[in-house]
């Protein structure tokens, strides 16, 4: 201890600015070198990396190693340690630090730690899957009572309009809010604006359309609300509400009343789900631009589902809805498996030297996860489709194989488009989606086949063919995926 700056560690001698001249080239450190001749043979910088043969300051060396837990990597690191914990001033510290650098030391080996993705997020995906299945079954079960009460055209038209809108909104919500840690809080913050926009731009115009409009206007919030509720962890409550609504419809309750009650309850639950998660957060929601693009892509997938005239939504009973189930479950399982990207790609690249950071290998995590996701999607779709077909006689459902193939193709396309979107390759995704739609719309003019779902299958297949090679070309290099697609968006 001492009054004023002299404490026995060289402070007094250093604060007067001696040795302040900058190095001539402006590159090296200009601390006094204490006779250390850098150009002398055997000195660092001449290729022979040996330490100067003169006594070291044992105090300085001990301080640095004690604080860093290893020798200093460079002069500045040693200087900082000596200054912060050794009580030396900058220039004496730099001078002392220069002698502490071992130019012959082996490079330190890096081993990046990879934190696993939050389990909660994965759990929410499982709940979302269960809810989705119940939603599809419910819609399938609504078909008969609504058709009987309101006429065959109403349900068909309502689904054709409500489904693309709902899918678009779901994709937008996921992009901007629900895929984020504080997504619900962000949604709560923007809830008034979001609700206002949906009411003004979607709900009111739909409700004003005679006959099927109000039904579509009620379906949209029921479907979209499910996404919010499952993200909140209330998926099973939502499923219970769906079941009750379905039972009410099947028991002969007026369709408008039952659907209206279902809509009201769903909206009320959504309000509670968001409001109970409205703790203030500084986190930002996703960008509007990206959410809009996601909405367009989701809308394209939705339109693709309903644009094939050979699929009679509502007219032919429960066929299309039940036939959709295998591919939706397959697509969902595949998509769920893709979550592993965020863990496995960094884990697979840990310890990979720079030379291997851009290698192409089919066994690397990106490609193996991708292939795993595709196999899950295809496998689940095939097995479940076979089961649904086998049970067709008992459920009075469809046994048209082409329908299952078509929905399987859509499931695959949806997965691929979703991947492209998550890699910020929206343009490629949009091209694939638009081309798939164009082919589907053109198909009736190109072919006179009446095979159910043929247009849908061909359109989706074209979309798959457009996206698959481009994705595989990228995914075969895990390092590139991480550096240029996941971390630079």
């Amino acid at each position: 201890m001492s009054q004023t700056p002299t404490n026995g560690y060289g402070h007094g001698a250093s604060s007067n600015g001696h040795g302040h001249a900058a190095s001539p080239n402006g590159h090296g450190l200009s601390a006094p070198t204490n006779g250390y001749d850098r150009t002398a043979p055997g000195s660092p910088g001449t290729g022979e990396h040996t330490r100067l043969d003169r006594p070291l300051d044992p105090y300085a060396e001990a301080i640095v190693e004690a604080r860093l837990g290893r020798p200093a990597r460079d002069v500045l690191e040693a200087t900082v340690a000596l200054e912060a914990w050794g009580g030396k001033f900058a220039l004496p510290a730099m001078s002392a630090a220069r002698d502490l650098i071992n130019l012959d030391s082996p490079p330190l080996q890096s081993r990046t730690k990879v934190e696993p993705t939050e389990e909660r997020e994965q759990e929410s995906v499982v709940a979302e899957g269960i809810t989705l299945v119940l939603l599809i079954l419910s819609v399938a079960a609504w078909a008969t009572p609504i058709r009987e009460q309101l006429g065959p055209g109403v349900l068909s038209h309502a689904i054709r309009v409500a489904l693309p809108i709902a899918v678009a909104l779901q994709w937008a919500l996921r992009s901007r809010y629900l895929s984020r840690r504080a997504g619900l809080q962000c949604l709560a913050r923007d809830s008034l604006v979001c609700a206002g926009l949906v009411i003004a731009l979607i709900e009111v115009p739909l409700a004003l359309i005679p006959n099927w409009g109000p039904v579509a206007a009620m379906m949209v919030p029921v479907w979209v609300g499910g996404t919010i509720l499952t993200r909140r962890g209330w998926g099973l409550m939502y499923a219970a509400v769906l079941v009750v609504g379905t039972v009410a419809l099947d028991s002969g309750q007026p369709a408008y009343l039952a659907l209206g009650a279902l809509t009201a309850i769903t909206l009320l639950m959504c309000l509670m789900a968001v409001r109970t998660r409205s703790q203030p957060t500084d986190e930002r929601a996703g960008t509007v631009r990206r959410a809009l693009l996601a909405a367009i892509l989701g809308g394209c997938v939705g339109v693709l589902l309903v644009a094939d005239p050979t699929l009679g939504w509502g007219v032919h009973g429960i066929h299309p809805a039940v036939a959709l189930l295998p591919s939706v479950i397959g697509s969902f399982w595949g998509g769920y498996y893709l979550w592993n990207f965020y863990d496995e790609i960094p884990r697979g690249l840990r310890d990979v030297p720079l030379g291997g950071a851009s290698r192409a290998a089919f066994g690397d995590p990106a490609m193996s996860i991708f292939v795993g996701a595709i196999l899950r999607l295809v496998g689940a779709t095939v097995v479940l489709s076979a089961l649904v077909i086998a049970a067709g006689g008992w459920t009075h459902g469809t046994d048209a194989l082409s329908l299952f193939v078509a929905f399987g193709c859509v499931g695959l396309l949806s997965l691929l488009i979703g991947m492209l979107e998550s890699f910020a390759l929206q343009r490629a995704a949009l091209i694939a989606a638009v081309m798939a739609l164009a082919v589907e719309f053109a198909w009736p003019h190109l072919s006179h086949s009446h095979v159910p779902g043929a247009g849908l299958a061909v359109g989706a297949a074209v979309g798959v063919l457009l996206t698959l090679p481009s994705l595989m070309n990228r995914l075969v290099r895990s390092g590139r995926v991480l550096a240029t697609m996941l971390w630079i968006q």
Partner: protein
Amino acid sequence: MKTTNAQTQSLSPETRNGMARLRGATDCDQTPPAGAAQRQGVARSRKRAPGVLMITEGTYPYATGGVSSWCDVLISGLEETQWEILPITAGGRRMRQRFTLPANARLLRPIELWSENRPRRRMPRIHVRSDVSLPTRLLRGLMPWTGDHQDLADALVGCRERPQMIRPEFRSRDSWEAFLRALDEVLGEKHADSAPAPTFDAIEAARLYQTLYWVARTAAVPTPPCELLHVTAAGWAAIPALVHKALYGTPLLLTEHGVYVREAYLASVREAAMTPGQGHISPRLALGLTRATYAAADVIAPVTEANAAWERGLGADPAKIRVIPNGIHPPTERSDPPNARKVIAMGRVDPLKDVQTMMLVAEEVTRRMPDARFEYWGPATPGQETYALACTRMHEELGLGDRFRFMGRTDDPHGVIRSGDLVLMTSISEAMPMALLEAMAQSRPAVATSVGGVPAVLRGCGIIAPPGDVHALATGVVTLLGNPALAATLGRRGFDRLHRRYTLDRCLAGYRDLIRGLVTGAPV
């Protein structure tokens, strides 16, 4: 601030096309650097120059702390100057303004790093594509021990002129592969001041690649015309200024509160979880940016001679360095200490403040002087919550109880200091701490560690001990608490010294002269 007579000049077609995004004009009188003459003309327009563009990094006006307070005082104090504030913040979060800007200042839209926003687009222009990809150029300019400043500046200017190219360049396979080859070369470089670089794995390479992408994005953000660029740190905040200076030759003033490189090294040393590769990236990036900024700056204004020593050591031209110490408004009369054996500490709860050493000091002092009491005023630094928790646990383990209390934030630092008998500071890194000036203003002596500019400030009016030396610090505290006459003498000396050397008027006058000189081209 003098506003020069901007010549209204009709814009050339190229100007309209290429420079349309640069609002207004710079009508500074300085001679632009070679190659900038044509661009200089481009930036002239109908609008009056706004004066000084201040670029901040993670501080004013969105965070509290010493640098932010200094910015606020400087802007409010130099009311004849028109300020435009360009903050650089970490993206993904909504920022709340902590300071109300005075009438002579205007807040620009912040540059958000790591945000999801895309780079702005500009009308594409025909340009000669460099043989070397942008990531590789930035890597070679920033990461070696001695980077190529000129090529770095050219690369950054390219980002400003062709922002739409940044993302495609960084997302291309060729750029990534060229970057990996260049990184291998850079890591293999040999220099007498550095041991061999750590080996990087692919993840760290990708992380560095991403960081360089944000360097490019930062460079791409347009800066408004101004007569002077004032950068408050030689790091990210310097990037837009480097581009602006290269384009228009506008003078650049750098104020360093802490030495950027030094703080980056300290952070990497402190962060135990950092891998060797991560621990290499951050300091090297800071070194590259700092050296480029020192080379481009017209004046470097550290707040203390201790920083100046670092700057000279890092190769800054000594002729550019002009120390301007911080200052505060001193009270006209001294206040008497309460003689309550109360020790005040002020600062964020942060590893740099070494709060744990302070608690050990408190433990030793109260063992020797049981009626002594310690109050620590200040919040935890955002992001250092774990450290704050560790401090709380240590407090419990030491059984300090009411003898040492964490008091949280205060809006009345002078009142807090007046309530104590002395001020204690155990930091391992400081530039010119305001807490010491506030102690001197209230005629309180200080016991502090001999870091940064502390010894120079406290000369003759406090007790200095080495950082981390619990016994020496505790002895200093006990000495002053047990000897009120000595404490009062040191307090009086501090009060007088503050009036002589560290008043706000003196600080503002220093900057007023500096800014006037830089804008008019007069010697500074």
